[in-house]
């Protein structure tokens, strides 16, 4: 709010302070809620297209050019549908639950740094705030499952509660390592600690350890936003649709919106903590843009959408885990790894003076290696496509 407050302060100098505060709070809220409402339209289209391409299909092609208007049509359909309340449902909780889920996802936006000055509030407990606020959604999910008065909805809600509570712990533990290195919970401070280009990003530093931290966080974050392979709360082949079985129309759309927004939040947090947030990956200054905002939003959204792509990639690769396997992964794999990493990073922070000099010479070749393998990956994929096309033509 500091930036928008000062900006609007210049524009609305004549207004009393309370009105300026109100406007400075309302403008980011409107912008973010628009982003949140329009985002799922893009994500759902991308998801359907990527899933189709991964299964050698075309995906939506009928509505608009390349099916671009398909999700808009679906959204309009959902908004106009009747919201049905089951006869035995608890009407108050049933209505409240989707609002709470959306609220949890939306509140996390408050601290997402879209640029060096483009952040609603730079809370000094930013990481803690994101973790705390995104857990409100869990309450909403349980509320939805309970209020539906439906066996499957309750099963889904219980599973989702168990899953999110379990995976919160390794996720927070892995965030703790970064927080210990930076010495601050503020997301803006964490981004600034990674200034100076690609090789200063945390994912490329502290070589053998930080990628593991990232993997632990990424796995846990997948589970937290109920994505496949951890989508047992809404496992459509076991429970009908989990906690949102009984929801229809606009309420269902709200659950949908919250789920995809949560995906974006989790991806944004991952890119802030490990991939330099709004920092440009290139060493040249102009890629960062001019002014207090510059290309910051572009880089953050680009990085977050890349993670959303990985989410989708994983979703269409992996089958769903069983409940016991899910608990095994959380408590017996991720948690021990995260605990060991917390201890190791704590010891390094305390006992290695002057930071970690030993990782500085490693990050350049490591960055080159990662980018090189990425390029290799792309080239092999395109060669595969070419060969396939030749086979088909022959």
């Amino acid at each position, binding site marked *: 709010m500091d930036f928008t407050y000062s900006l609007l302060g210049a524009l609305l100098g004549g207004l009393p302070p309370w009105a300026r505060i109100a406007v400075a709070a309302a403008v980011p809220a409107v912008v973010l809620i628009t982003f949140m409402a329009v985002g799922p339209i893009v994500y759902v289209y991308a998801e359907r297209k990527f899933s189709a391409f991964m299964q050698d299909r075309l995906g939506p092609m009928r509505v608009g050019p390349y099916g671009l208007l398909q999700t808009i049509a679906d959204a309009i359909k959902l908004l106009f549908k009747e919201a049905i309340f089951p006869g035995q449902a608890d009407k108050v909780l049933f209505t409240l639950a989707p609002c709470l889920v959306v609220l949890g996802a939306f509140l996390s936006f408050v601290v997402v740094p879209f640029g060096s000055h483009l952040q609603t509030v730079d809370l000094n407990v930013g990481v803690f705030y994101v973790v705390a606020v995104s857990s409100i959604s869990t309450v909403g999910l349980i509320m939805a499952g309970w209020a539906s008065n439906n066996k499957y909805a309750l099963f889904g809600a219980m599973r989702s509660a168990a899953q999110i509570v379990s995976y919160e712990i390794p996720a927070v533990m892995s965030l703790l390592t970064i927080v210990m290195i930076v010495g601050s919970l503020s997301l803006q401070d964490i981004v600034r600690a990674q200034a100076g280009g690609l090789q200063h990003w945390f994912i490329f530093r502290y070589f053998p350890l930080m990628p593991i931290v990232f993997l632990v966080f990424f796995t846990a974050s997948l589970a937290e936003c109920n994505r496949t392979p951890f989508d047992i709360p809404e496992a459509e082949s076991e429970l009908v649709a989990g906690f949102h079985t009984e929801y229809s129309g606009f309420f269902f759309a709200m659950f949908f919106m919250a789920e995809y927004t949560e995906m974006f939040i989790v991806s944004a947090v991952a890119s802030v903590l490990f991939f330099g947030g709004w920092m440009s990956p290139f060493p040249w200054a102009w890629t960062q843009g001019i002014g207090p905002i510059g290309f910051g939003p572009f880089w953050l959204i680009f990085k977050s959408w890349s993670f959303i792509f990985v989410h989708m990639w*994983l979703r*269409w690769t992996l089958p769903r885990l069983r409940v016991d396997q899910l608990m095994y992964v959380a408590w017996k794999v991720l948690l021990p*790894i995260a605990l060991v990493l917390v201890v190791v990073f704590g010891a390094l922070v305390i006992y290695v003076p002057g930071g970690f000099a030993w990782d500085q010479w490693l990050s350049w070749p490591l960055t080159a290696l990662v980018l090189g393998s990425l390029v290799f990956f792309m080239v092999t*994929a395109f060669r595969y*496509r070419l060969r396939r096309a030749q086979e088909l033509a022959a």
Partner: protein
Amino acid sequence: MITWLKDVWEGFYTVLVGMKITWKHLFTKSATLQYPEEKWILPPRTRMRLFMKYEDCIGCGQCARACPVNCIYIKSDKRAPTAAPIYAADGTQIKLDVHVFDIDMSLCCYCNLCTYPCPTNCIYMTPEYEFATGELTNHLYHFAKPNAKFLTVNPKPKPAPPAPAPAAPAAPPAGEAGGAKA
């Protein structure tokens, strides 16, 4: 501890294997055919909807006898001897007036057996396959046209004296068809 590490590594590694496969398929050409815009390239001699060229039919009924599902209905009368002679395209004189030639494509089993015995090759399978309708009766095709223009001049008049000779070999297919039926 060692087995635990091995399990974790295997879990991670197999995920990468799966992701590699989906990554490859992300760039493969899609197998989907945008049907109404694009269509299958049909193989040669595809057997789809039956067609009958009414002007060439001599009303012999061999196709109806060959049909295993009895989906061809023919009604014909002897042509009046005083009427002007009409001919099929291959020079065979048409001696029967075909009033009804119906094919029920909802019964047809696309076996192609009706086209072999036809002495004038007037019934054949077309590559046309988009004839779905909302009414079952729309699959009953009426091929007999009341005002068909028949050839009144023999298109192949030259071999007039050996005309019975081509007529004679036309008989064995009929016998064959009868044999196939029995």
